[in-house]
């Protein structure tokens, strides 16, 4: 089990971030010595992180060619995929899985040995943020606080209150975040295990379902760990929330796939087992629902 948690933690994505050309200097004004204009930056980021944590680096790379001086490396910037603004407050991996809607089985046949799977995004800036993006007024500190509240919410769902986290010392809280930023899995697990209770005393499970179609939506269903003494299965939850897509009596008749951490997960598995192995760094198990097309079946 810890092997799967390791793989989850070290999962990564290749991003190519292009800059909105409107933000660049006219080509005649490019500082001397720089041969070609930098219009995109490629980086590999952990799936288990927030996109906006990389803003200072990405904006910094574009900075010498920007039309305006950079006042703030967080505020006013946002990412888009094909013109669709990205809500940064979910793990990068969950955003990728739901927004691209890719079926992992098809993806692996499409991308072979000598090709890379790259997610193309656009970096934009403006005083009016799109309505789905939370303004970042207090930089990385705001990201940390938002993340901490996600954990408190997850803690409430699992334990019936947030007391466990609220009694953390300041240094524990900061060390927990530090583990995310420095990618220290050992340190992260030490603190995480103080929040996630023993399987037998786990009340409910923090589960988030991401949909892209017919429109982008987040659903957080109540998912009790046990139902009449039996572990709740993912198919129970999906069949109840989305009976149109998930057929409880016959899994093969389902019209959509459940994807977590970039893999096609078995819907007949107990949610508890999925949570313990695949939950994200914000305390939630993020599951993206991807529709299956005719060609794939």
């Amino acid at each position, binding site marked *: 089990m810890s092997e799967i948690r390791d793989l989850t933690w070290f999962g990564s994505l290749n991003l190519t971030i292009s800059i909105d050309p409107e933000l660049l200097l006219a080509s005649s004004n490019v500082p001397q010595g720089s041969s*070609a204009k*930098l*219009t*995109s*930056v*490629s*980086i*590999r*980021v952990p799936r288990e992180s927030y996109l906006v*944590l*990389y803003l200072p680096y990405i904006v910094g790379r574009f900075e010498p060619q920007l039309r305006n001086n950079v006042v703030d490396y967080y505020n006013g910037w946002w990412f888009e*995929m094909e*013109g*669709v*603004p990205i*809500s940064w*407050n979910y793990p990068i991996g969950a955003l990728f899985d739901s927004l*691209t*809607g890719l079926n992992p089985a098809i993806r692996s046949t*499409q991308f072979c040995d000598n*090709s890379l799977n*790259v997610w*193309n995004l656009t970096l934009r800036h403006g005083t*009016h*943020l*799109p*309505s*789905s*993006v*939370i*303004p970042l*007024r207090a930089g990385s500190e705001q990201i940390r*606080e938002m993340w*901490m*509240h996600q954990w408190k*919410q997850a803690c*409430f769902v699992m334990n019936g*209150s*947030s007391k466990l986290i609220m009694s953390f010392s300041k240094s524990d809280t900061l060390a927990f975040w530090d583990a995310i*930023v*420095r*990618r220290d899995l050992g340190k992260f697990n030490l603190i995480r295990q103080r929040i996630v209770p023993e399987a037998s005393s786990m009340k*409910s499970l923090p589960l988030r379902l991401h949909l*892209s*179609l*017919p*429109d*982008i*939506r*987040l659903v*957080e*269903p*109540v998912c009790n760990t046990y139902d009449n003494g039996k572990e709740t299965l993912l198919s129970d939850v999906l069949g109840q929330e989305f009976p*149109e897509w998930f057929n409880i009596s016959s899994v093969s008749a389902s*019209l959509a796939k459940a994807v977590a951490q970039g893999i096609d997960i078995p819907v007949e598995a107990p949610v508890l087992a999925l949570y313990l192995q695949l939950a994200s760094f914000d305390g939630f198990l993020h599951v993206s629902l991807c*529709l*299956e*097309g*005719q060609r794939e*079946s």
Partner: protein
Amino acid sequence: MSQLLESESDAGSMSTNIDSPPTGSRNTMQDELEQYAKKLDFLDLDGGSEHQSELEALGSSASIEASNGDIKTGNVPSHKAPMTTSAILTHLTPAGNAAIEKVKEKELKKPTKLHIKFLAIGSVPQVSPQVAQISSSQPFSVLITFLKRKLRLRTVYCYVNNSFSPAPQQSVGDLWEHFKVNNELIINYCNGVAFG
């Protein structure tokens, strides 16, 4: 972040689009243009909205006034998926098409009304009436906007059950289902940070 692997590409390689799936032949040019037009309309609406303060932006479509405890809201903002992702809609199985239509219909159905109880923390005035009604499909951000307007405050910090602030995109209905106390979702609010 120390593991950042990086490389860069210059203007010449910008057009390499490794990730784009083969475009379906059934996707006619006209379909694409129509989708683009819709997308432009959508973006324009957003850009034209009044100056928004923190978190308020997420509930921008909701015009709010409370008369006898009923929080009136506009349509829930809807966000369309990227074009290459929605391309799959053109080659769903007949059963898949029927399912998508059903999901859309379900969204249009009138949502249920829920009770919210507002409790002030510290020196902030208590909002009146204390218990309000809101439709379950609204995002949490609408409650923040509501309190700000009602109390004429620039910022309001909201917590569920004196514990955490939820993501602004989360639906009030989901929060109510999870955290209700005596069939009311309890929102504690303050003009400063109360629970860090």
